[in-house]
């Protein structure tokens, strides 16, 4: 790669520039560092047809991602299905609805596969041998899987009370899983101390400027899969708020480098009521994020009480004319079941949050019935099966007897319809 598209890191607050190393915070004012690009060079180098000629993975937007050479991790990640969801649209009362289905991401079935692909590609460029993360589960799964495939040693630090399937889905890759007695924010605090002391590549601490950019690929894909246009509305679940800000950034960059016409778009944020620091701030008309010290929600992947990008997420929502909503555990379960029963898509609890918040936004008119909507589903339902299991009826059991079967379905509507 002769041309340099990724220039330096830059403080989001004061604009001070930093070299492209494993640093994530401005030394002067502690603002987060973000990748900065040479957009003119990028515009000269890519086009719709160049991108369309490339393999169906997230690296087809490589010029807009913060690595120097060719990507080495995540060559099968991304380009997940954008599903036209007509049956769900009917149930929710809108005409033009799509699911961006990252439950189907490679290799670990969540959108985190995107961010980890970038973080580990960059970690290898920077010479790290050990990679690590603080995680509510999905990130741990992805770091463990991608690190195994890339031949890197990994440590993942998680709250000790995570869903069993999310713990198992890290352990199987041979990563070092460390459960911390505490909430995610305490895990994160510990990780920033470890990162400073051990010189490991923490994907969401010292590699965060690289990691976070990976989320943009979800936005680029949505635009491309809609035929190089934007949905009028996009509903994004919020934990740290990073994904939401990066989807908005992707939409802006896509028009900045000439891939799409400049066009209006609105981003809405979705949280669980049991951990809603960003949604609560938005509803209160402020950008001051009041931390939630004890999150209580089944949407554990969204249970970040001190969201690092909360301020920026509020502003991305506001500046695009969007809204934030939050939903109860019961509404989350209802959202998961509605998506599964209408579209055949089994989302994790965060997906239930997105669907249930979209339902509220539509019924309150914040998403008008005649405008296009994309819902971002970020992880697979099998990862949080234990949250849904108690709400599903058990299978009905009979002996291998036709008589018993006929007695059992005698009152089923399906049987009556078929007959």
């Amino acid at each position, binding site marked *: 790669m002769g041309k340099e598209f990724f220039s330096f890191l830059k403080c989001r*607050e004061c604009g001070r520039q930093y070299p492209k190393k494993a640093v*994530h*915070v*401005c*030394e*002067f*004012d*502690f*603002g*987060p560092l973000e990748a900065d690009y040479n957009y003119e060079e990028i515009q000269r180098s890519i086009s719709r047809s160049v991108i369309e000629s490339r393999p169906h993975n997230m690296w087809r937007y490589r010029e807009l991602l913060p690595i120097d050479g060719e990507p080495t991790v995540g060559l099968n990640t991304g380009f997940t299905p954008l599903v036209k969801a007509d049956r769900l649209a009917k149930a929710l009362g809108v005409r033009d609805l799509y699911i961006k289905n990252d439950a189907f991401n490679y290799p670990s079935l969540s959108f985190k596969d995107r961010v980890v692909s970038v973080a580990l590609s960059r970690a290898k460029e920077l010479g790290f041998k050990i990679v690590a993360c*603080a995680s509510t589960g999905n990130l741990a799964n992805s770091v463990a899987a991608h690190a195994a495939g890339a031949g890197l040693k990994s440590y993942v630090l998680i709250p000790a009370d995570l869903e069993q399937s999310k713990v198992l889905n890290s352990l199987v890759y041979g990563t070092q899983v460390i459960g911390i007695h505490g909430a*995610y924010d305490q895990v*994160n*605090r510990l*990780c*920033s101390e470890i990162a400073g002391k051990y010189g490991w590549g923490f994907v*969401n*601490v010292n590699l*965060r400027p690289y990691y976070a950019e990976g989320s943009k690929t979800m936005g680029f894909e949505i635009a491309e899969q809609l035929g190089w246009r934007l949905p009028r509305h996009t509903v994004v679940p919020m*934990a*740290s708020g*990073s994904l939401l800000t990066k989807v908005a950034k992707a939409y802006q960059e896509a028009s900045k480098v000439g891939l799409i016409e400049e066009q209006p778009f609105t981003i809405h944020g979705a949280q669980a009521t049991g951990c809603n620091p960003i949604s609560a701030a938005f509803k209160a008309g402020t950008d*001051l994020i*009041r*931390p939630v010290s004890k999150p209580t929600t089944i949407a554990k992947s969204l249970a*970040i009480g*001190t*969201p*690092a990008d909360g*301020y920026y997420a509020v502003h991305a929502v506001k500046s695009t004319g969007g809204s934030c909503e939050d939903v109860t555990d019961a509404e989350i379960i209802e959202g998961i079941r509605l998506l599964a029963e209408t579209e055949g898509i089994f989302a994790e609890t965060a997906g239930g949050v997105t669907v249930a918040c979209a339902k509220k936004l539509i019924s309150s008119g914040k998403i008008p019935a005649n405008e296009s909507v994309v819902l971002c589903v970020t992880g697979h339902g099998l990862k949080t099966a234990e949250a849904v299991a108690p709400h599903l009826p058990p299978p009905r059991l009979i002996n291998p007897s036709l008589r018993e079967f006929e007695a059992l379905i005698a009152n089923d509507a399906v049987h009556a319809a078929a007959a």
Partner: protein
Amino acid sequence: MPIPVSIPTVLRPLTDNLDTVEVEGATIGDLLANLEKRYPGIGERLLDAQGNVRRFVNIYVNGEDVRFLQDKATAVKAGDEVSIVPAIAGG
């Protein structure tokens, strides 16, 4: 009555490597002004050009973020614990 203010590692080069500094003041604003007088340069790291506490700087009085008290007008008294903690970006 001087009030102990705990200083984060990254700012200790400005405070002769002291992790706690005792400064006089009846409000957070006073404490910060006196801190700047004693250790010139620390003020601009904590406050922006308008004099507001920077977005990624947290100042706690007895564990409560002053943003949810009265910001720089938050009163302090003998026995209070004041700490300056840069926000942790992560997640």
